[in-house]
């Protein structure tokens, strides 16, 4: 199996001013007084990780353990301060509810906007348009402005757009609770299809049971470091033990 994600000694360090300068004026005043002090916060520390094609990797850890930062590094949003990241193929993160949508545009217009934000050309989107609409079960609503949609409809549309193209690497950040039971089942079917076709899936959650049911391998992140990496059952057991203490 080919590695599709390789992280080598990856370090992510946030450098934040000691006080938050809300405004430019404040900043200038403090800067002139040489009062700007920075506090460093290491979100990821010397991470080494290899993920292979077709693997379904679960990432567990408490809030603030660095899970989201890890995903950002993999989806190319965050450039690490040290270390090296290599990715093979297209990374597709599932956006949170309604991100990248515009309330005044119709569902159809939003498909084009959202698809373009995900890096697809107009032609690619046109080819998949019917499929997206059908999967999202929007029917006649597709030509109404998005502000008339229910939350469930927006969630379905977002999921439908993001997963209509088979990604090489799919990133799921705590969002599996999309729509009703029926729609969730459809999502599951689509996920399994991706899995069979060799998509690598990264699933992040702080509830271990989600990971247990889906993943073949798990990683436990704690304070920006990898505490354990191995089969799901082993890693989850370790993670559970630590949270009890």
């Amino acid at each position, binding site marked *: 199996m080919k590695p599709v994600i390789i992280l080598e000694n990856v370090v992510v360090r946030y450098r934040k001013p000691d006080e938050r300068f809300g405004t430019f004026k404040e900043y200038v005043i403090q800067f002139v007084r040489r009062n700007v002090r920075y506090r460093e916060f290491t979100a990821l520390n010397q991470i080494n990780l290899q993920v292979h094609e077709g693997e379904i990797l679960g990432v567990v850890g408490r809030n603030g353990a660095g899970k989201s930062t890890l995903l950002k590094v993999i989806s190319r*949003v965050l450039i690490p301060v040290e270390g*090296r990241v*290599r990715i093979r*193929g297209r990374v597709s993160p599932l*956006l949170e509810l309604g991100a*990248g949508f515009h309330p005044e545009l119709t569902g159809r217009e939003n498909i084009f*906007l959202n698809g*373009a934000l995900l890096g697809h050309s107009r032609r690619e989107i046109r080819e998949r348009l019917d499929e997206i609409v059908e999967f999202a079960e929007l029917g006649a609503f597709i030509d109404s402005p998005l502000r008339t949609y229910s939350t469930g409809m927006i969630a379905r549309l977002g999921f439908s757009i993001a997963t209509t193209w088979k990604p090489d690497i799919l990133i799921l950040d705590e969002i599996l609770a999309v729509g009703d039971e029926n729609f969730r089942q459809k999502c599951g079917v689509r996920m399994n299809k991706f899995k069979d076709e060799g998509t690598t899936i990264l699933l992040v959650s702080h509830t271990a049971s989600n990971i247990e049911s889906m993943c073949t391998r798990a990683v436990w992140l704690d304070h920006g470091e990898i505490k354990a990496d191995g089969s799901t059952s082993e890693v989850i057991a370790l993670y559970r033990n630590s949270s009890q203490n």
Partner: protein
Amino acid sequence: MKDNLFLQSEFTYDSKYRKHPAVEELLDLVMYRDLIQQLIRRDIIARYKRSTLGILWTMLQPLGMMAVMAIVFSALFHQVEGYVVYLLSGLVAWTFFAQTTTAAITHIVWGGTLLKRIYIPMTSFSISSIGTGLINLVLSLIPLLLIMLAAGRPITWAFLFIPIPILLLATFALGVSLILSTLAVYFPDIKEMYQIIVQAWMYLTPIVYPESILPDSYRFWLLYLNPMYYLIKMFRVTIYDGKLPSVETMLVGTLISLVTLAIGWIYFSKKADEFAYLA
């Protein structure tokens, strides 16, 4: 080692082998060219969708504002022949500049939440602001031509030269937009501050008043050191005077635009790596 080299070529992204950020941004932008088009579409549609007059507002809005200014100031500057056209030829250019630069700030703030989740070439927000502005500018030239006819100002062949001043102004506005949107990521109050600055800047540039009323002692500061002076002048000479701008004005205007864009582009793309860190 050999194995490594082989592997490297197969990866689509490698944080160790990156091109210069300014070049990388440009290449990615070509890949995401449809995004810019979609963002422009979104701006135009969203702005006019819930209005009955729709896109007509693009022409009516500047017209209304200009009418007000023309009435107020024409009594003051009656020595300027065809004052309304004098005012409008400068005002369309200024409105474009003020609108696009402000929109760029708004857009980078809107994009901020997305930028933390997915990779997008971030200059697309500034570029699409310019694109929307260009559509509005070209549409506002229609009422301008009508007013010229009504006011009896001659429309000459020089008007066909107008794409060049528009292009140079857009280049300058893009450079300024990129600098402003970088600052806006760090300091959310840049928008408020800029609105005051842009207002003051407008009145310091000869747009509502003729250049000739400026005392000699101010000329150096308000004209020769003011980049917008040259860019506005190109519009004015082409539309109001009906002549081609002088070579000197053209050269200075081109130089200002290109240098500003280069500074803005490099500054923005160098800082862009940090944007996601500012959660």
